[in-house]
């Protein structure tokens, strides 16, 4: 099977800092992949390179067989790479409805979905449990609901690859359980790349885990392999048991 996404020797420097340092990465269609690593390991920079929010210093990104390394972020979104922000970044002054209408009408314009804007919006809001709050300004939603709205916007883009940057940050335990179900649901129709600090969430969700450290990939494998990897334990999970 052809990988959905491949990076070759991908690097990004900020001044003297090599935030992402020669990363070769492959993502197969349909999998849920978690990216973990200590703070400052380059995880967010890495997914920002994938989504096009920042451009790489060197290296190459291939999505679905095409080189997208120098494509603008909005073009990548139209190709099916959706990114949900680490820090909630919904349009606070717009209603939840309008927040989701923006991605829905985009996919309609691109011909990636059909039907009325309203139908698409309400479907995405139903799926995230926000339908009864459609007309509230997004800024007045609770933090947890804003995170869900962020996911609803990502979903409404009908992504082939959904990048979730620390989606459970700030969620209550009860909300996290629902969230895990939601991601499993999403993974039926899209590949999911998840940056996550919450290890129980990672262990439950991920098919495979990639561990970053100092801008490089330290290890990669199934949750069991990663749990048993002594290098990972030293770098990330603390001292070896």
């Amino acid at each position: 099977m052809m990988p959905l996404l491949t990076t070759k020797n991908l690097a990004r420097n900020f001044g003297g800092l090599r935030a992402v340092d020669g990363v070769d990465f492959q993502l197969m269609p349909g999998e849920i992949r978690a990216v973990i690593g200590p703070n400052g390991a380059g995880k967010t920079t890495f997914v920002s390179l994938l989504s096009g929010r920042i451009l790489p210093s060197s290296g190459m990104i291939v999505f679905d067989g095409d080189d997208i390394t120098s494509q603008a972020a909005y073009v990548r979104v139209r190709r099916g790479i959706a990114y949900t922000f680490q820090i909630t970044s919904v349009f606070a002054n717009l209603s939840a409805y309008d927040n989701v209408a923006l991605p829905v009408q985009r996919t309609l314009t691109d011909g990636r979905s059909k039907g009325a804007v309203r139908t698409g919006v309400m479907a995405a809001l139903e799926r995230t449990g926000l339908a009864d709050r459609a007309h509230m300004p997004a800024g007045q939603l609770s933090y947890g609901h804003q995170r869900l709205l962020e996911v609803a916007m990502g979903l409404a883009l009908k992504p082939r690859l959904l990048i979730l940057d620390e989606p459970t940050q700030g969620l209550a335990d009860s909300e996290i359980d629902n969230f895990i179900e939601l991601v499993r649901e999403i993974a039926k129709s899209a590949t999911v790349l998840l940056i996550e600090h919450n290890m129980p969430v990672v262990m439950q969700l991920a098919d495979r885990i990639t561990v970053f450290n100092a801008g490089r990939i330290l290890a990669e494998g199934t949750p069991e392999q990663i749990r048993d990897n002594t290098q990972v334990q030293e770098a990330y999970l603390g001292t070896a048991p």
Partner: protein
Amino acid sequence: MSEASPAKAYALHLGVIALLFALSFVLPDYHHGLLARIMVLAVFAMGYNMLFGYVGLLSLGHAMFFAAGLYGAGLSVIHLGWSLPLAFLAGIACGALLSLVIGLLALRTTGVAFMIVTMMFAQVFYLTILYFAAWTGGDQGLVVPQPARVLTFGATSLDLTNPTVRYMSALALFSVVLLITLAIVRSRHGRVLVAIRENEERTKMLGYDTFSNKLAAMIVSGTICAASGAAYALLFGYVGSSFASVQYSILPLLWVLLGGAATTLGALIGTVFMYYVIDIASGYTSAYLLIVGIALILLVLFFPKGILGTIRQRWLGWLP
């Protein structure tokens, strides 16, 4: 912005147009003439609001678009002897072309840099008008001669110097632009413009080419302002460089802020308000600008979102 109450919004706007139509028959001569002028300038404010209110781009150079319409229409009547409809279209075309060029250059910047760049381009435009005084009349300006301001269709003719014809022409332009503006802000494109104003980076990450959307808004804005300028030249018969000066870049900003940025009817309300405050204050004192200044300060203090913006925030959330 939401999908709710389109009927209510359209009913309100048609009601305002009907009210302005009815006023034509009851207003005394002086106010009749003043309101005709206000409606034309409110079109200028609506054009400005398109970019400032909805996209959040503060231009300090919109006088150049107004003046492009003013001179485009005026000069083609005076020097080329074009018919009025053709001259009007020429004015609009000048504004559209100018806003395309300025947009391509100025939209590479945002915020304060955008303000400075647009202001500088407007100054260049203003000085160009003065430089070519042989054609533009320099700072004296030119008068569009009265015989040229008569529109003939076969046997019938419309004299734009006639107050009623002038009022109705102004109302027609105002109504068309008001309804176009309403349609745009309620459209999908309008939703994207507001999203750009709120958070441009996020809008890009939803798959939108924000530059093209901003450029489109710039052209619509500049073209509407030019339509206002072209109508002004033909209806009031004067083409002058003062309309290209920096004062005429700041006035639409004030009108829009007063009436309420990002409200479709705010431009009209702000323009009416400002004109009448000046009119009434100057009846009492020669220091009328002081009173205008105080009125502006009070408004900013107590109605920071403008008149209609405050009404929308407190009572009528559905206002477009």
